[in-house]
């Protein structure tokens, strides 16, 4: 298998882009990616594209990417894998490049959550991820889906809402310097605990905002990487894991088995372990999910997440900084774009140019968990070819 490198990365700001459609956001992200290439890009060299989009605002996704970016002569494939869509798009494109079928692949992720009314989203998303007869009518909305896990996790682990709040506070602080982030303001633990309840145990400030945005990466094979940059970021490992789709069929809800499976696969492919990761972008759609993910990714032992966040290890300057971009919590979460944008952040971290730089970062990990908590995708990147 050929080695695959990321040589360009770009993204739009994540926010409520009421004034821009998917047909604007996608080409904006691709153009910014293009501008990031050290040696420039001739778009005619792009041989195929993968487009991660969860919903289909404005219609046929693959066609919209091709049409809006002037890429009418290449194959485009839409990837939809719930909230793991972004990193799964990276995985699929890296397979094609790694297999030697093509040398240059475009990866785009985008979604417009705010194309629907703020509350209308609940049913639209439930319709994508729930059994229509059994679970959908119960009102198992997205926050409730994760809260069922976190409630049990708090019950068994001894972690508290304060520990969840520490995640939110940290990620808001991290977002302060990120011009692409949606929520660039500091919050306090007291504010998180006092915020209106969304789905107990989540208050409003434990939750990701609803976001619009797009992100893009250019993946190339080791054979042509020199034509694009002298500072590539290598795709060292990818993994995807699944679980039972109904919550009542998940035996241990204090863990997300898809994350364990996906990270295990990605670590094995990269030839590293969790202790080798210098910086991580972790799926913190709800604060408690970041805690559980510390354990599933191997950053903490079982029920050791509370101690890890308390120690400051996951803050910039700590031993394993998590979500320097602000994470989903503060940067925002347009699902199709989220995983791709995590890789945009890691691309900058591993080239030493992030607005919230982790000193000397050599290995980065991006992680998504989503749908009915039944799918996870993990990508391991490094500035060393390995």
């Amino acid at each position: 298998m050929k080695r695959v490198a990321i040589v360009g990365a770009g993204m739009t700001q994540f926010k409520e882009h009421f004034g821009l459609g998917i047909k604007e956001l996608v080409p904006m992200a691709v153009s910014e990616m293009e501008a990031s290439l050290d040696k420039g890009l001739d778009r005619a060299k792009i041989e195929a594209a993968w487009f991660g989009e969860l919903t289909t605002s404005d219609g046929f996704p693959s066609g919209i990417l091709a049409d809006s970016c002037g890429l009418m002569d290449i194959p485009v494939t839409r990837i939809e894998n719930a909230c793991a869509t972004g990193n799964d798009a990276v995985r699929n494109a890296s397979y094609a490049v790694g297999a030697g079928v093509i040398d240059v692949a475009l990866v785009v992720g985008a979604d417009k959550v705010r194309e629907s009314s703020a509350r209308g989203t609940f049913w639209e998303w439930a319709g994508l991820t729930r059994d229509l007869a059994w679970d959908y009518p119960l009102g198992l909305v997205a926050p409730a889906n994760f809260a069922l896990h976190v409630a049990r996790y708090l019950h068994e682990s001894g972690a508290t809402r304060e520990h969840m709040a520490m995640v939110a506070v940290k990620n808001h602080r991290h977002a302060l310097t990120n011009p692409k982030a949606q929520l660039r303001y500091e919050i306090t633990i007291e504010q998180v605990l006092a915020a209106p309840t969304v789905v107990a145990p989540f208050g409003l400030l434990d939750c990701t905002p609803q976001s619009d945005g797009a992100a893009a990466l250019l993946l190339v094979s080791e054979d042509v990487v020199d034509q694009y940059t002298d500072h590539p970021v290598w795709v060292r490992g990818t993994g995807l894991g699944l679980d039972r789709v109904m919550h009542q069929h998940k035996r241990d809800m204090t863990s997300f088995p898809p994350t364990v499976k996906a990270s295990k696969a990605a670590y094995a492919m990269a030839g590293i372990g969790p202790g080798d990761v210098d910086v991580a972008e972790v799926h913190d759609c709800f604060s408690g999910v970041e805690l559980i993910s510390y354990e599933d990714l191997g950053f903490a032992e079982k029920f050791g997440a509370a101690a890890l966040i308390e120690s400051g290890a996951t803050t910039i300057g700590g031993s394993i900084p998590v979500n320097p971009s602000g994470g989903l919590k503060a940067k925002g979460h347009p699902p199709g774009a989220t995983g791709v944008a995590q890789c945009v952040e890691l691309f900058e971290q591993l080239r030493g140019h992030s607005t919230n730089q982790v000193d000397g970062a050599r290995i980065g990990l991006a992680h998504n968990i989503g749908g009915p908590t039944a799918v996870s995708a993990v990508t391991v990147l490094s500035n060393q070819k390995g």
Partner: protein
Amino acid sequence: MTNVSAVGTYLPVWATKAGRVTGPDEDVVTMAVEAGLAALGDRSGEVRNIVLVSRDLPLIEGGNSAAVLAGLGLDAHVPVVEQLGGAPATLDAIANAAAGTLVLAADLAPAGAGAVLVSHDGPSLTEPGRVTRSLPITSRGRDGERRDYADPRLELQRGLHVAVDALELQDKPVVVAGTTVKIARELCAGTPPELPVAGASAAVFALAGLEQIGAGGLVLAVEQASAAAARLGGVPTVVRNELAQREPARLRDNPGPDIAISLAAYDRAFEAKVRWEAGSCNACGTLAFPPRLRCFECGSEAGWSLTPLPRTGEVYSCVTVHVPVPGLPTPYSLAIVQLDGTEVRALVKVTGVGPGEIAIGDRGSLVLRRVAVRSGIPDYGYALLPDAVAGSAEEESR
């Protein structure tokens, strides 16, 4: 002559000054099933046919009967008559039933339901009388809108009194269904039991009232200008599923688009969902809920058979949704319940308690409720009734 072999009653937990009210997850079907299960106990094998009396039937075009049969665990071949009527119609149905008839009656305001199993044992119901006249003081037509003529003295004098006189009763009744406490006292010999309902199910609560009196007697049922009477020959066997009353939870209605439904998916799920049954793998017996083609355990795709699930369990995890969800009253609680004696867990709504009054480790029973109304279609399934609620009713009755 018929025999009142078993009487069951049901009252929802929620109450206002005007009486019991249904929760957002209850209707005539779910309440009739609660009362029916109370009456039947282990006698469901005796049921040959069902009469369901109400003026608040949810699905006028059909669909109620199948849910009633499934909720009661009865065979789909049992005939069900859905009858519009009030207290006289219910008393009439009981007094003229063939042995093997389960008469169900339910009302929305005040809310409650009753059931009578007519079989070969229990006190006799004799001397049936019936007078049917027209004085539509309250009217509700095809548009569903209720109109009130608002003339209580006319109703009393030209309605109730004329009807009761026409029955030519030999003696005074001991209980009256379908009217106010005050009028019932005027009509009765002695102090009649106060009934919590006034519609179709009031006739069953009147029969149950004879258990409180401790003797048989003449039962009168009235509605506008019609009346029915019958004499119960002794004290009936009564099982009351009457939950201790609580103030209605403060819920927020969230207007929104209709909640979508796939009737194909509804149809596939119906039997297991409304009968509370799992698929048991034909190869290894592992239970799957909901039923599924491929067995979790042995991987067999050779098929499965429906098998009843336990109706008690313990909360494994639970959450309360506070954020406004269009089309659902909020807040509401969801629980994953570990069913007793099985590996099966179920994801259900919580019923009978205020939002958030549920915790991991709590125990409860699974009861038929209307999980949602989807594009006008009631979607029935099971909800967790915490033991804290059911327990409080037992204490009250002691």
